[in-house]
């Protein structure tokens, strides 16, 4: 992958040299034997490319197994037209390629995860629960087959959850507490009957996310002109966050707290003044 095109520049054109799937063939509809699958050849969009690229670049964290997710603000940093990003995420969600979760960091964060990663994470959690305890784990099967496939929103009401799980079998209150303790559902603070969908094992990563954001913002705010060269910033390591610098930079640029300026000596990252 060439470094000529700055990674954080917004892309408006579709022809990017880092594309893995050959583009003209998919537009002509010719069957390409090198592509991963036929559907992926035709379902092509800037947002999907950016999602795949960022998922591949998700940092590897020791001790905690978290599947790769992409924050919505990271997508905004790469693709210029935000309305197009929103609409493509909505259509990907309806096609059941990705799933959106609202993260409880206190700010308005949404994480986008591919459904395959989500299902494999649920299975990993179920396997660990099987090793630890001998309780009945059939509710997770019902959850995977009925709730995940039918309910595409970020939250679900108690009655609706009950009716979806009942399609699998007789539901008891203990089943819902099992789901909550596994980390798949979180009760909402405002309304006791509503649950947020959540990613299991994500707690430590969320803490690292908010601390890493604060650390990066304070790093830049302490400097004299509140800016720093991107090249110098990239090699720094954050002390409080397991996620790498590139993750945080993309997130803060996309949410508007930092902005990048082109200069003759490269990109400069500066704290945005409102």
């Amino acid at each position, binding site marked *: 992958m060439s470094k000529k095109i700055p990674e954080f520049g917004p892309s408006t054109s579709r022809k990017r040299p880092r594309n893995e799937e050959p583009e003209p063939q998919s537009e002509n509809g010719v069957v390409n034997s090198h592509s991963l699958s036929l559907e992926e050849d035709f379902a092509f969009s800037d947002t999907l490319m950016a999602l795949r690229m960022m998922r591949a670049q998700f940092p590897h964290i020791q001790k905690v197994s978290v599947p790769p997710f992409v924050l919505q603000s990271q997508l*905004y940093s790469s693709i210029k037209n*935000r309305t197009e990003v929103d609409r493509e995420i*909505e259509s990907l969600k309806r096609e059941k390629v990705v799933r959106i979760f609202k993260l409880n960091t206190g700010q308005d964060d949404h994480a986008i995860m591919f459904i395959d990663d989500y299902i494999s994470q649920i299975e990993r959690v179920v396997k660990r629960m099987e090793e630890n305890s001998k309780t009945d784990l059939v509710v997770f099967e019902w959850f995977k087959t009925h709730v995940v496939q039918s309910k595409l929103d970020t939250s679900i*009401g108690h009655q609706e959850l009950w009716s979806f799980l009942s399609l699998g079998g007789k539901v008891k209150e203990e089943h819902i507490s099992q789901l909550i303790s596994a980390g798949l559902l979180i009760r909402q603070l405002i309304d006791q009957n509503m649950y947020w969908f959540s990613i299991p094992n994500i707690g430590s990563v969320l803490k690292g996310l908010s601390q890493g954001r604060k650390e990066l913002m304070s790093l830049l705010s302490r400097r004299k002109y509140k800016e720093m060269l991107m090249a110098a910033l990239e090699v720094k390591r954050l002390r409080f966050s397991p996620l790498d610098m590139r993750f945080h930079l993309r997130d803060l640029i996309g949410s508007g707290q930092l902005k990048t300026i082109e200069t003759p000596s490269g990109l400069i990252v500066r704290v945005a003044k*409102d």
Partner: protein
Amino acid sequence: MWKETREREFGNLRPNLFSSRIFKSRISSIQLSNSKEIVSSHRGSVNSLQVDLTEGRYLLAGASDATVAVYDVQRATDHDGRGRISKHKSLFLINKQHEHGHKYAISSAIWYPIDTGLFVTGSYDHHINVWDTNTTQVVMNFKMPGKVYRNAMSSIARSHMLIAAGTEDVQVRLCDIASGAFAHTLSGHRDGVMSLEWSTSSEWVLVTGGCDGAIRFWDIRRAGCFRVLDQSHSQLGRRPPLLACAATNKKSSSHQSSAKARPPQRKSTNGNTVKSHGVARVPSQMKSAKQRSHPGMISSHDRATAHYGVVTGLKVTEDGMYLLSAGSDSRLRLWDIESGCNTLVNFETARLQSSKAIQMAVSQDSALSFVPCMTTVKVFDIWSGQTKCAFRGHYENVNCCWYNAQDQELYTGGNDRQILVWSPPKSISTEDDESKNGEAATSDQDNWSD
């Protein structure tokens, strides 16, 4: 511009197209006015601005120090800077010393839509006053159960004269000027109502945004609201033409039918929980049986939210098709009123103020929207969500803005007690020709003393 006038003369250009081109070119050049200034006589932050709808001449402003003032924006009271800058002072000012004046901050002040003889103010002292403009006396007074956040009157109403009032109480009250009493109340919100607007296409439809994050549509002739906007019901862009919309309609109607199916579903599962949990659940089943009977109250079970925080501002476009809403989660959303879906246009807002309501404005052809974002007013293109420009001029947060379509001027009021005028630049040569001070003599007059 001259080419277009020529085309108009020959009949190549239709009059509507001609006028809309001129409006567009003027709007795109709006900046802080170099020829007009409003001298604000308020000692508190300006909370509400409105230009009257009949003449487009008088600007009504309500402020946090309980003052209300009216300014004439077309005729200046005096001139400054060698006749170049026209200053507009207030025509009259009502403050706390007035015998029936408000005691606390005024949150909204609106003109009576039919003429400028009356205006209505709502204040944090729980009162709504109707004033006679010429005598500046209170003709009617309504007492509300809580702080009044906003009041509104329908500008297209032909058969009613109702003031809709949103307070910190959960019920929206409708006050009738003709009879002096409350007409009825609309319940359904779970928390106070911070913003409300009448629809621009029907005189019976009211849109309210609450502190619980929900936006509800009410038909005041019926009980209960007929639509609650849900931010997860979305459509991709404008509604597709009739033939192609069968597919998307199935999806959106399946969402809505699942919403309608929810109340009967809930009642049947309530029955299940009664069997397994015994006595404690019985009162809730009885409560749901009682609530089942009234069709108007089914909507109060609908907990869909339009924003993750408080809905701080609402604006219906002039054509009555779209609704722009601002929330304290710093999001602006554009809703298609007919289908009730979120059009997923992303407006790039970094932060919006969350404690106070904001007043937004939309240009007449619904292409641009003016939104107060902290200390600036940002101009967004409604369809793509891009920021066209940002007006920086206030020293503190901007609370309200009003777009005067007649002159293509924008008036903004903020916490710094100022009302600023933003207009297309006036060329200076026209000012010199008008000889306001009587100094501009003709160039060939003799200077000889006689």
